[in-house]
C-alpha cells in the first residue's frame, strides 16, 4: 500500500479515537450520582441527597421549644423562622452583596400575571442585591423542567418554579424537585408550617417529605353581577328561583354559566358525599353513590338552566360577559377579564343544597426547587431563600393580593379579613378555599380526569339529544364504565 493510503488510514483512526475519547469523557463527567452506589461508604446512606448533618432531625429531642445553638432566627415580613447557621451567614452575605449568585425562576402564566411577578422579583433583588433572578415565563412548564433536570443543564434549567400542588406526586416521583427536609432541620419546617393555612402547607407534602411552599390558592365559587344578584343566595332553592327567572333560551338568556368538566362539577359530587379519588386510601370513587347522586342533581338542577350546546370555558364566559346570565361558577383566574366587562362583581359561596355544603377542589400554588441546584450550595441556598421570601414577605404578598391572588399565609388572611370592603372578590374566593378539598397529589390522578371528562361529555350529549331524564338515566352506566377504565389503568 502506498504512503498516502497509510497516512489517510492513520488520520481516520486518530479521528475515530478522538471521537470515542470525547464521548467517553462526556459520559464519565456527566452523572456524578451514578457513581455513588459503591458499597465502600456504608456509613453514609444520606449521602446521595442529604449533605446536611444526618443527626439533625433527632437533635430537637432534648428540648424542642428552645432554639438550638446552631440555629439563628431569620425574619421575613412578620415571620420568624429558625434556620441553620450557615444559611443565615449566606443570607447576610447576599444582603451585603459579598456573594453573587444567579438563579432561574420559571412560571407558566398569562400576561397579567407575568407583570405582577416581575414587580415582586424586583423587590426581592432590592433587598438581596447579591442574588440575581433570571425570570422566564415558559410554555409546557412541566415538560421543560423535567427535560432540563434529565439533561442536568444547570445554567439553562429552572431552579425555582411554580404551579398548582397537584403536580407534586409526578415531579417528586421523577426526581425533578428536592425535598426541603433533606437540607433544613425540623425546627425550620415547624416554624414554616406555623405561617400558612394548615391545608396549604400540607399540600406541599408527598410521602411525608416537604417539597414546596405555598403562596396562593384557588377554588371555584359563584361569581355574580352584584347589580342583578344583590345578596348571597342562602340555599340552593333561593338560587334556583333566580335561575328560573333568567332562563329563556328563545331570548338567549340563561340561568347560569357553567363550564362542564370534572373539576368544575366537583362541588356537587362532594355535596352528596361523593369523590373521584382518595389519596389516603388509594381508592377510586367515580361510581360511588355520592358521585352518582351529585351528578344527577347537577343535571336536573344546574344543566337545566344552562346553555348546553357548548359547555366550554370560552362560550360560557362569553354568556356572562354579554350579560345574558347573572352568575358563573368559576375561579379567580377569570376575574380580571370579568372585571373589564362587569362593573360590580361579587363572589358568593356555592349555596348549600338542603344543608349539604358543596366543596370545590382547590389548587394551591406551590414553589418548588429543582434537583439541578444540589451541586451548588450557593444556588441551593439562594433558591431556598427566594422561595421563603416569596411565600412569606408580607409586602410582596400584598402586591399579589391586590393583583387578585388568594393568599394562604395566615397574617395576610388576617389583613384581608380586616380590609374586607377593599377586597370583596378575593375574600369571597378565600372563603371558597377554606371550604374546599385539595386536589389529590397522587400521580394516579392523571388516570382519573379523562374518563370522568368522557362520562360528563356523554351526559351533555345525551342531554342535548333526549333531555334531562334520559341523561340522568345513563349516568350510572357511564360512571361504572369510567370507574372500570380508571381501575384498569391504575393496575397497569
Amino acid at each position, binding site marked *: 500500500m502506498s504512503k498516502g493510503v497509510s497516512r489517510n488510514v492513520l488520520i481516520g483512526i486518530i479521528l475515530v479515537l478522538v471521537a470515542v475519547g470525547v464521548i467517553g469523557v462526556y459520559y464519565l463527567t456527566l452523572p456524578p450520582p451514578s457513581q455513588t452506589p459503591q458499597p465502600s461508604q456504608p456509613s453514609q446512606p444520606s449521602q446521595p441527597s442529604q449533605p446536611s448533618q444526618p443527626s439533625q432531625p433527632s437533635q430537637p429531642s432534648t428540648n424542642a421549644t428552645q432554639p438550638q445553638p446552631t440555629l439563628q432566627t431569620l425574619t421575613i415580613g412578620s415571620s420568624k423562622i429558625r434556620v441553620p447557621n450557615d444559611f443565615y451567614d449566606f443570607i447576610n452575605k447576599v444582603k451585603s452583596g459579598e456573594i453573587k449568585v444567579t438563579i432561574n425562576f420559571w412560571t407558566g402564566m398569562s400576561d397579567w400575571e407575568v407583570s405582577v411577578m416581575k414587580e415582586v422579583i424586583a423587590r426581592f433583588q432590592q433587598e438581596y442585591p447579591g442574588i440575581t433572578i433570571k425570570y422566564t415565563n415558559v410554555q409546557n412548564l412541566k415538560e421543560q423542567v423535567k427535560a432540563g433536570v434529565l439533561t442536568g443543564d444547570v445554567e439553562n434549567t429552572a431552579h425555582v418554579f411554580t404551579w398548582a400542588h397537584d403536580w407534586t406526586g409526578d415531579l417528586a416521583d*421523577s426526581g425533578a424537585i428536592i425535598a426541603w427536609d433533606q437540607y433544613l432541620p425540623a425546627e425550620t419546617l415547624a416554624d414554616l408550617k406555623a405561617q400558612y393555612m394548615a391545608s396549604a402547607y400540607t399540600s406541599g407534602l408527598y410521602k411525608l417529605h416537604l417539597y414546596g411552599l405555598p403562596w396562593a390558592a384557588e377554588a371555584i365559587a359563584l361569581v355574580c353581577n352584584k347589580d342583578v344578584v344583590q345578596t348571597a343566595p342562602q340555599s340552593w332553592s333561593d338560587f334556583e328561583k333566580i335561575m328560573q327567572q333568567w332562563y329563556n333560551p328563545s331570548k338567549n338568556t340563561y340561568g347560569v354559566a357553567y363550564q362542564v368538566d370534572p373539576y368544575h362539577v366537583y362541588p356537587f359530587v362532594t355535596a352528596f358525599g361523593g369523590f373521584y379519588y382518595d389519596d389516603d386510601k388509594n381508592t377510586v370513587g367515580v361510581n360511588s353513590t355520592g358521585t352518582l347522586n351529585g351528578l344527577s342533581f347537577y343535571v336536573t338542577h344546574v344543566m337545566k338552566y344552562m346553555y348546553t350546546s357548548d359547555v366550554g370555558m370560552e362560550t360560557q364566559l362569553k354568556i356572562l360577559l354579554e350579560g345574558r346570565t347573572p352568575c358563573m361558577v368559576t375561579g379567580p383566574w377569570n376575574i380580571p377579564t370579568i372585571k373589564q366587562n362587569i362593573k360590580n362583581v361579587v363572589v358568593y359561596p356555592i349555596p348549600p343544597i338542603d344543608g349539604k355544603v358543596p366543596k370545590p377542589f382547590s389548587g394551591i400554588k406551590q414553589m418548588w426547587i429543582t434537583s439541578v441546584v444540589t451541586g451548588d450550595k450557593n444556588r441551593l441556598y439562594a433558591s431556598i431563600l427566594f422561595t421563603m421570601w416569596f411565600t412569606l414577605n408580607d409586602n410582596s404578598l400584598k402586591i399579589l393580593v391586590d393583583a387578585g391572588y388568594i393568599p394562604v399565609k395566615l397574617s395576610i388572611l388576617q389583613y384581608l379579613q380586616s380590609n374586607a370592603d377593599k377586597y370583596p372578590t378575593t375574600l369571597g374566593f378565600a372563603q371558597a378555599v377554606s371550604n374546599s378539598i*385539595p386536589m389529590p397529589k397522587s400521580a394516579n390522578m392523571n388516570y382519573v380526569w379523562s374518563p370522568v371528562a368522557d362520562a360528563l361529555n356523554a351526559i351533555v350529549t345525551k342531554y342535548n339529544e333526549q333531555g334531562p331524564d334520559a341523561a340522568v338515566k345513563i349516568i350510572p352506566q357511564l360512571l361504572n364504565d369510567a370507574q372500570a377504565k380508571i381501575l384498569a389503568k391504575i393496575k397497569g
Partner: protein
Amino acid sequence: MARGKGTTLYPWHVAFLLIMLSLAMYLFFSLWPIAYSIYIAFTDANNFNIASEPRIRELMSQRAMVSSYLQANKENILKQVYQVDTYLDEVSSYLRELRKIILQSTPQNFSIARISELRNNVDSRLTYVTSIISSNTTYLYYFPGIGGEMTRVITIVDEGIWGDIDRTLGFKLVVTQEDLAQLRNTTIPKIDKALDSIQKIQLSLKQVESNYQSLISSVTRGLDEEIDRISMHFVGLNNFEQLFSDSRFPYSIFKTLLFVLTSVPIKVAVGVSLAYIFSSPLIYGRRVMRAALLVPWALPVLLSVTTWRMFMAPNMGPLALYLNSIGIDLNIYNREWDAFLAYNIVEMWLAYPFIMTVTMAAISSIPKELLESALVDGASAWERFKQIMLPLTARPILFASILTAGASLQAFMVPLLLNNGGPTKELQFLWFSRTTSAVNEMMVLFGYNRAYLDQQYGLSAAAYLVVVLILLLYAIAWYFLIYKRTAPGGV
C-alpha cells in the same frame, strides 16, 4: 494528482470512511429514534416513569448501602425510634386535651389562646416525627404501618381538625354556642381517628424495637417496590390488547377510513372543477381569482380551522345562525354526523387549492394544436373535454388524489380544532365491547389524546404503530394497483 498505480478519482479508503460516517449518522439519527419509539409501544411508559432516571439513581444508591448501614447503626436508629414514640405520646396528650376543651367548654371559658398553643405544639411535634420517619437516616417510612399511617395522621390533623377549627372559628375573638356544637359534631370524630392512627404507629414502632431484622427486610423491600413503581416496564403486547379491548380505537379506524372515502371525492371534485373553470379563457380576470382561490393553502391551518369553528359554533357562529334561520339546525358540538360533515367541508376547503394547482398545471401542458385540430374536426366542447383533456390530465389528478387521501388518512388538526373529535357518547362497534368515547376521534387524534390527555405514552405509541401499519398497507396498495399498472413497463 495521480501518485502511482491503483490511484483512482475516489480512492477506496475515502469511500470507506464516508460509508462508515454515513452509517453512523444513519444509526444515530434514523434507526435509534425509530427503534426507541417502537420499543415504547411495548412498554407501560407514562408521565411519571418515562423521565424518572434521577429519582431511580437516587433510590438505587440508597438500596445498595441500606442494609449494611442499618446493621451498623442499630443503636442510633433505635434511639430515634424511641424519640418518635415519645413525640407521639406528647401529640396524643395534646390532642386529648383539645378533645376535652371542645367537649367541655362553654363559650365563656373557651380559650382560643390555649387552642393555638396546642396547635403549635402538635404541629411542631408532628413535623419532628415526620422528619425522623421520612429521613434517610432511619428509613422508618418503609416499615409497614408507619409511613402510610403517618401520612393519614398529618392529613386528618391538618386538613381535618385544623381545617374545621379555621372554618368554624376563623379569626373570631368570640365563640358562640353553635360554633362549639358544630366543632363537637365534626371535629371530635376526626380527633378520635387521629388518636387511633397514632396508636397504630406506636404499635409498629414497638415491632421495630423487638424485631430489628424486620426493619431491614421491609426497607429493602420498600425501596425495591418504589424503584419498581417508577420504572418503565416491558409489557409485551398488552398495549395492543388494550387498544382492541373496546370499541374506541376500532371505531376510530373505521371513522378515519370513512372520512377518506367521503372527503377525497369532495376535495378532488371541487379542486378539479375549479381548475377547469379557471383555465377557460372565457373568464375575465381569472388570474386574480385563481390567486385568491389559493388563499386557504397559504393560511396557517391553526388559524383557518379555528376561524371555521367560530363560524360554525352552534347558536353563535354566523354560519350556524344563518342555517338556523332557513330551518337547518347545524350543531357541530352535539351531533355526530353534523360534526363529520363539518370536517368534510373544512378539509375540502383546505385541500382544494392543491388539487386545483396540480390539475391546472396538467391542463396548461395539453398541446394547443391537439385541441385546435379537434375543433377543426368538428368535436363539440364536451367531446373535447371527454376525449382529450380528461385523459391527458387523469394521471396528475390521480397522483394528487393519492396524496390528498394520505392527508385525509392522517386527519388531525381539523377534528382536534373543530371539536376535539366530539361529541362524546356511548359507543358499541361491531363485536367490540361497549365504551364511552368521542365518536369522531380520528386515528392520529386518538394517539395524541392518549399521550396528552391520558399521558399513557406506551398506549399512544402502540396506536401510532397501528396507524403506521395502515399507512404502509395503503402505500403498498397504491403501488401495486396504480403505479405498477399505469407506468409503462410496469416499473
